[in-house]
């Protein structure tokens, strides 16, 4: 028995680069070096700035929903950097791919497989989960999630999947069958290597983590709302979070099951999806998309929530059509479970099946249309400020509608037969995911950043980033529609028709702009941290917000609310401000119970990563060791005592009173001064005549 399973020195891209020096192997080795250099420099920086202890105490072992949310978003931004870089490499390669290109076909396939897997499961999902984590308990007036430790475990599982994908860049190769990993190509017969195993053991923990997050969010919203916060008084972001949570609960099991079935095929010789002995590979596509389609709406619904909040706040108006927005959100959540077949219209089933799912697909566009009109009506005659979130919103309005319309085109099976598997499809889903999800999440980060950290993000750099994202998106992806209609298949490592070249060049140029957008996004964060004193908004309400989360100091204390608020209407905080009764003093404070720090999530993360890595390389002793560790950790948790800490009432009172005093001494700012250093987070009534 080999102690290290299938591992040996030849599996790294470095040995490839030495044995076979070429552009292709150098790119792979360069990417691997970037991962190693990145990891090492993080370690060095942490040591240099003596950050290990705060990192451990305040972050890795914290069960605070806001900190867990921030960690999700940091994870997502790191993975976003890799995903965007991969996208740029692919566009660069294809621009040179007339009759061949710099990268090998397998390398190109690895790139689009990791790009897709990362962008969906390790960028979009953590962004959404992170934002929900931060915002929802604050919006509903809760102290934390219903299950804070399980929240940590969810993060640990997601991080484990992400870690494994990062490892695959340095050790071995990733899967080459796309982010969907369709068998039989990804079965043992056609992909005997470790690639699909890396995919499986990244996806399974991430899927489990998201399912647990879904349970956590749903129970929190069902059971932990502040008194008076009825369902129809919940802010719209919370509504979208609830629907997303429900979809996570029901849509994540299929992907976990299909991945594990694929694992059984590969590891144990089962015949779920094989060509021979009664396997049915189309069942894989079927199960995968039972997850895959709701997944799209899992991602986009919270973005719709962000747009609702942003549109209302930055036009200083009540959200138009609240009830229709809620109804639309719920309809989307249910209908999204009835459309999955449109991802394989061309499988060979009869026309009647296709028609049924085609119609369902067209129907799901209707509630989204309703929403767009609601947001526009919200902005109508509002006191609109062109802040960064509103720039994103504007880009979203125009671009997302185009993306949605191409989706309706694709919903028609006869048209889908013509353009499926072409770049038209690639253009379509990037057109909904980037302006929809990514813009939404970036806008959401900009909007709620001051709530979490106590200072605003720099508006100038933020606007630059937003502009570059919009322009970069248009240049990169609109040409792909044209290429798709010209018949260029997706996932092509090379092509022979020179007619594709002009659009390819344009798209490659667009990719450069997107790299610039990414750089500007990170610059925004760095510049803002450096100017944090100037941008500070400690009083907590920089945008004249309408919902409960803005009625707290910034950064929010660990316990969120000194006393749990009582809610008597929609937009509770806005009404209090209009009625002249915000920031009411509190006569009696009580002790607050919060979960204690725990290493549970971190242990689960390490053990899961270990199990996954060992499974990929067939290191059986390590599999047993890590998996047993995982089980024992969970059993040991059942015996844990002393899991709570108590914040004394005096401490709560001291901090709360200090904040109220600071508010009393501040005159506040009108909306004109919102983006100046005069903004300390207290809104004064606007003088503008409506």
């Amino acid at each position, binding site marked *: 028995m080999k102690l290290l399973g299938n591992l040996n020195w030849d599996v790294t891209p470095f040995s490839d680069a030495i044995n076979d020096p070429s552009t292709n192997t150098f790119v792979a080795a360069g990417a691997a070096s970037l991962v190693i250099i990145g990891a090492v420099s993080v370690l060095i920086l942490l040591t240099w700035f003596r950050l290990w202890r705060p990192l451990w105490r305040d972050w890795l072992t914290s069960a605070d929903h806001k900190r867990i949310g921030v960690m999700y978003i940091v994870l997502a931004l790191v993975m976003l950097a890799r995903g965007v870089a991969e996208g740029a490499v692919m566009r660069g390669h294809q621009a040179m791919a007339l009759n061949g290109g710099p990268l090998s076909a397998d390398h190109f396939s690895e790139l689009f497989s990791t790009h897709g897997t990362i962008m969906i499961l390790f960028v979009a999902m953590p962004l959404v989960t992170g934002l929900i984590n931060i915002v929802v308990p604050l919006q509903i007036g809760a102290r934390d999630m*219903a*299950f804070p430790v399980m929240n940590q475990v969810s993060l640990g599982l997601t991080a484990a999947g992400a870690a494994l994908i990062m490892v695959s860049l340095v050790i071995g190769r990733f899967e080459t069958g796309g982010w969907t990993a369709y068998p039989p190509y990804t079965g043992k017969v056609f992909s005997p290597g470790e690639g699909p195993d890396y995919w499986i053991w990244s996806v399974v923990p991430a899927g489990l983590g998201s*399912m647990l997050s*879904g*349970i*956590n969010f*749903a*129970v929190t919203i*069902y*059971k*932990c709302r502040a008194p008076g916060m009825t369902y129809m008084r919940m802010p719209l972001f919370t509504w979208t979070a609830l629907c997303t949570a429900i979809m996570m*609960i*029901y849509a*994540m*099991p*299929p992907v*976990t*099951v*299909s991945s594990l*079935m694929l694992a*059984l*095929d590969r590891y*144990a*010789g*089962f*015949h*779920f999806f*094989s060509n*021979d*002995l*009664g*396997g*049915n590979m189309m*069942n894989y596509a079927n*199960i995968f998309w*039972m997850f895959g389609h709701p997944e799209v709406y899992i991602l986009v619904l919270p973005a719709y929530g962000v747009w609702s909040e942003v549109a209302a706040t930055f036009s200083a108006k009540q959200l138009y059509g609240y009830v229709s927005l809620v109804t639309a959100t719920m309809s989307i959540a249910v209908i999204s479970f009835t459309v999955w077949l449109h991802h394989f219209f061309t499988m060979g089933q009869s026309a009647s099946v296709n028609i049924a799912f085609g119609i369902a697909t067209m129907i799901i566009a209707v509630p989204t249309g309703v929403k767009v009109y609601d947001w526009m009506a919200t902005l109508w005659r509002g006191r609109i400020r062109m802040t960064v979130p509103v720039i994103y919103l504007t880009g979203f309005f125009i671009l997302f509608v185009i993306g949605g319309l191409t989706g309706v085109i694709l919903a028609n099976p006869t048209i889908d037969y013509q353009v499926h598997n072409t770049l038209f499809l690639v253009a379509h889903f990037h057109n909904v995911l980037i302006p929809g999800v990514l813009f939404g999440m970036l806008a959401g980060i900009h909007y709620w950043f001051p709530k979490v950290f106590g200072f605003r993000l720099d508006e100038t750099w933020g606007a630059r980033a937003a502009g570059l994202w919009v322009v970069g998106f248009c240049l990169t992806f609109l040409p792909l529609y044209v290429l798709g209609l010209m018949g260029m298949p997706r996932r092509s490592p090379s092509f022979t028709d020179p007619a594709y070249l002009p659009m390819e060049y344009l798209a490659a140029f667009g990719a450069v702009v997107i790299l610039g957008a990414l750089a500007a996004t990170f610059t925004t964060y760095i510049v803002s941290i450096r100017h944090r004193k100037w941008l500070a908004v400690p009083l907590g309400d920089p945008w004249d917000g309408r919902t409960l989360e803005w009625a707290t100091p910034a950064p929010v204390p660990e316990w969120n609310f000194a006393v749990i608020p009582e809610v008597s209407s929609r937009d509770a905080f806005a009404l209090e401000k209009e009625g002249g009764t915000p920031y009411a003093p509190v006569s009696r404070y009580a002790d607050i*119970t919060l979960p204690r720090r725990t290493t549970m999530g971190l242990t689960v993360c390490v053990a899961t990563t270990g199990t996954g890595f060992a499974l990929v390389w067939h290191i059986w002793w390590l599999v047993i060791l890590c998996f047993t560790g995982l089980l024992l950790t969970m*059993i040991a948790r*059942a*015996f844990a005592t002393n899991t709570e800490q108590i914040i004394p009432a005096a401490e709560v009172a001291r901090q709360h009173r200090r904040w109220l005093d600071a508010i009393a001494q501040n005159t506040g700012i009108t909306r004109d001064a919102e983006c100046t250093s005069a903004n300390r987070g207290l809104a004064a009534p606007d003088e503008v005549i409506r």
Partner: protein
Amino acid sequence: MSQNLHPGLNLGASHGDAHQQSELSVFGFWVFLMSDLITFGVLFATYAASSTPIAMAGGPGPAALFDLTSTGMQTAFLLASSLTCGMASLALKYREGPRRIALWLAVTALLGAGFLALELRDFADMIAKGATPMRSGWLSSLYALVGLHGLHITAGLVWIVVLLLLIWRRGVTDLIKTRLLIFALYWHFLDLVWIGIFSVVFLRGLA
């Protein structure tokens, strides 16, 4: 009556916080079970779609493999364990002291172990007849569905052991009451899934 809210739970009005936390956990676990139901549902659907001559690939079929007596005995074991699990819940709700609870839990575990032993014996018989999961797509889906249920039962047995240890070490605290309640949900849920399995897999296979 608030006591009827959750059978087996008598934390009473004086334990406001504990009651609220318990309600959260119970509801959360219900939601988890529903998610688990989808997991089983996917495997049920796969099994149903694989019950064709093509998916059996010339290998042994239901008539050659299924043993109605054994399935019936497994059903009996599981149903009996559901009843004893219910008795444990009642003991928790109405009786002071851990003894009766522990006893009923132990009986539940024994019945569950009996079920598992019979299931494993059936698997061994099938494998001896050459019906391994590697033989055909149909057998793969059969083992996956029935095996996943068996795995859940195994987890349930481990859970009982942990519960018994906790009761032995700490007595019946509020926290343990909630956990027992959740365990009861889990165990009854597995019986529900088994109704689906014996109907869809075994009876339909032999009909």
